[in-house]
């Protein structure tokens, strides 16, 4: 029996590109309908880069429908296979270092010109 996702150690072969988002690996294969301790951090990532609406609930650790939709949106944008699950390709992409500018640029984006 495999250990719960939230407590499973990282596989020895995993290459963590990132010191800021290293814990995302523990959500590998997570999918809708379950509670994953700490997944709210991943929700914050999705919110920061424009895949999850600011008005959506982001504090909880439920992998709910809205989060599944956000994951699918991310996968579609990045040209990944759209599964709505946190598969290895998706997690690998999320752990890469990146630019801080949002990918989807909502109207309220801070990178708009401020006068």
């Amino acid at each position, binding site marked *: 029996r495999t250990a719960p996702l939230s407590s499973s150690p990282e596989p020895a072969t995993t290459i963590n590109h990132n*010191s800021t988002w290293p814990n995302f690996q523990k959500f590998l294969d997570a999918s809708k309908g379950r509670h994953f301790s700490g997944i709210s951090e991943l929700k914050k990532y999705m919110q920061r880069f424009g895949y999850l609406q600011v008005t959506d609930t982001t504090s909880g650790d439920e992998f709910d429908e809205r989060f599944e939709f956000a994951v699918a949106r991310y996968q579609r944008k990045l040209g990944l296979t759209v599964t709505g699950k946190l598969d290895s390709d998706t997690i690998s992409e999320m752990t890469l270092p990146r630019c801080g500018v949002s990918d989807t640029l909502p109207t309220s984006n801070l990178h708009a010109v401020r006068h």
Partner: protein
Amino acid sequence: YNYFNGKPRWSRAIPTTLTYAFSPNCMASNLKLSDIRLVFRRAFSRWSAVIPVNFTEAETYGFSDIKIGFYTGDHDDGEPFDGVLGVLAHGFSPESGKLHLDAAETWALDFESEKSRVAVDLESVATHEIGHVLGLAHSFDKESVMYPSLKPREKKMDLKVDDIEGIQQLYGSNPNFNIKTLSQSDTSSNHG
């Protein structure tokens, strides 16, 4: 390629010259200013080769169009940096001119002399952020400079067709630019 909302660009008449300067107080601790200047000069030249916009370094930081600085953590623009890797840098849309890099990164001029496994290529990131400062948002063409992520020790500084088409839609083409001068690798992953 994609644009920011409202498709902002530097509004002055084209051709034009934009000035840039480095924050005198916010620089990378592991690099010399002369090296940083050289890297940014090359990065700006990649964009000026394809559009009728020139870039020149200003003597006075406060009066420059594009203001470049290395910052740590919260630096009062609402987008705090997060330490090693994670977010590497951000650039603001026109005509803000802000181009900020995370001072906590191990910025590399070349990977021969910088052996760190978390080293990040400064010229690649500079080229990407200049794209934002000029008005390009993220592209999801994996080979493009404007793709949002960059692996440590990876270089991606040569503009691809996607980047070039995007920026030329905003500013027009540099009359001296010839798409045929791009190497095959610059064109094959895009529209061919």
